[in-house]
């Protein structure tokens, strides 16, 4: 990882104590921020693994959660940046549309499920079904990912600097997978693909955006063999 300057605390940082204020009031306050708000920096303390923290945001604000989160943190995010200074529970960033979610620790299962856009960065590992049904989101994981990741992935990019578990990309459509380490097994209709210059460029861009110092040429690309796109009885066993 690249050396990074110590995070500076913005002058106008607003702090919310989740345990004191409660989830409803916390999310309500964040939802009330408009496109031109000047209160762009928010910090949530004492998250204590609560579910649905900072979900449904739709403003260019930056929310930092100081601790670990439960299910669906940053769910359906639009525009905002959500930093999780801890580990993230299941379904973090599900259906993300735009903006960014950065997880300092590990991510549980279904990370970025069905996400349509934006970027999710994991500095630790991501569990099973990472990027399941992804529809355009980009996910960059510094560590490893678990089994059945990107199941039915439709579009977007999943970058894994470590290893991938069983059945990567099962029944995937047009999503791309870049793995630097090993892949335990490929799912149905997922195959190794040629890494062309345009792919290296996409990969480099994503690694840069995530702040990970990895050499794109060390990665292998995987994607759909497109054999299951239209039913054929000879492929019946693969369904």
């Amino acid at each position, binding site marked *: 990882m690249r050396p990074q300057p110590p995070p500076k605390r913005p002058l106008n940082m607003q702090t919310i104590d989740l345990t004191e204020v409660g989830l409803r009031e916390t999310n309500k306050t964040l939802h009330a921020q408009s496109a031109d708000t000047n209160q762009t920096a928010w910090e949530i303390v004492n998250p204590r693994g609560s579910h649905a923290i900072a*979900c449904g945001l739709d403003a260019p604000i930056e929310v930092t959660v100081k601790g670990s989160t439960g*299910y669906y943190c940053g769910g359906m995010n*639009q525009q905002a940046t959500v930093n999780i200074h801890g580990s993230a529970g299941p379904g973090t960033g599900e259906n993300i549309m735009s903006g960014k979610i950065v997880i300092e620790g590990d991510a549980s299962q279904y990370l970025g*499920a*069905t996400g349509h856009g934006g970027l999710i960065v994991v500095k630790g590992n991501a569990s099973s079904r990472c990027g*399941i049904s992804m529809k355009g989101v980009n996910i960059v994981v510094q560590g490893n990912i678990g089994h059945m990741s990107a199941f039915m992935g439709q579009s977007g990019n999943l970058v894994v600097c470590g290893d991938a578990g069983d059945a990567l990309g099962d029944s995937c459509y*047009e999503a791309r997978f870049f793995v630097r380490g090993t892949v335990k097994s490929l799912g149905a209709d997922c195959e190794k693909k040629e890494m062309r210059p345009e792919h290296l460029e996409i990969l480099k861009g994503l690694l840069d955006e995530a702040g990970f110092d990895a050499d794109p040429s060390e990665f292998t690309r995987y994607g759909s063999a497109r054999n299951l796109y239209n039913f054929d*009885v000879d492929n019946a066993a693969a369904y």
Partner: protein
Amino acid sequence: MNKHDEKGIPHTTPRQSATFTQDVNSDIRRAAATGIYDIRGGGAKRKVPSFDDLLFMGASISRYPLEGYREKCETSVTIGGLHAENPIELDIPITIAGMSFGALSGPAKEALGRGASAAGTSTTTGDGGMTPEERGHSNKLVYQYLPSRYGMNPDDLRKADAIEIVVGQGAKPGGGGMLLGQKISDRVAHMRNLPKGIDQRSACRHPDWTGPDDLEIKILELREITGWKVPIYVKVAGARPYYDTTLAIKAGADAVVLDGMQGGTAATQDVFIEHVGQPTLAIIRPAVQALQDLGMHRKVQLILSGGIRTGADVAKAMALGADAVAIGTAALIALGDNDPKWEAEYNALGTTAGAYDDWHEGKDPAGITTQDPELMKRFDPIEGGRRLRNYLKVMTLEAQTIARACGKNHLHNLEPEDLVALTMEAAAMAKVPLAGTDWYPGKPGTGF
């Protein structure tokens, strides 16, 4: 036919098998020729115990009726008042079920919105997302949250008047969706983030939750995103209605949508449609029991669907404890689906009006279950909307007629005591007496 052979020995008459019927044999030949199971639209075509096996008794000396045109019989229903700031207020207890854009054309969705709004009720999106046509023409629009999450986005979510988390569908409890390549037009492909022309499979499970404990958290998330404003329904297939209703309520649902096996689908394996799930008649009482056991009957609303056709069906569903019903197939027929006026074209497709169910092929002569621009032109959404409104009004009038005859000034006041059953099966399922007796199978204290 030879009556005897050359030696004069008589032949037996040709006899068709009750096991290997012509239908069965044609399906075997179809399977042998294609190597794929039969996919079709619609609901179970087999005969199952149904609302037709129930009758209302009407008024007598012990109960007096209401005067047809003078004494009011209310029909309104409020859905989702338990947790939501803005519950859905409907003039009539008949809603339009979720049917996907993709399965239906844009103009057909528009017509559903027009008809439902004119009749004072809601429509529902479906797999494939929310179209401007239906949002624009539906006063009350329920947004489905499905396993596939096709077209799912928070902007549309916030435009919805209610959210329906779809766990299952009566036509295929435990099954996912299917939209064959022919119907994946540019617009459908774009809304679903998929390549054009591929066979599109929808998942059968939600990608980011499993089980009742997760469902509770998912409901919390959706409420947080929409500020606790709109009701959240949970739609389940008629599989294990007592437990599913119990778990949905415990997870925090405002309403439970329960869909029996006659319920339609856009495209599912025939074997699934005909062999998985329970008949609509069989699932109401267990669901109502679950609501009552939790003290939630009439607080969490029960919306019943699967083969609802008439005001009598509506009245029977409500008498057994439902708060409202939803219709899919019947609404399509009202719009003009399977109309005999297209008989020649149905014949050309190898079928006949009333039996046409290859909706997934996108060749619907009525222009409703298609994405073909030429066929779509045949369907006028304004006329379609008017027809649907008429039909909804007629169903409501029919239900009111029955309710008044039973002495009820609101459809919700209909009760099981107003009903008898024609068959033992229906008596057991509806827990109302077999006609002419005071008994039903399983009645407590009767030794059965």
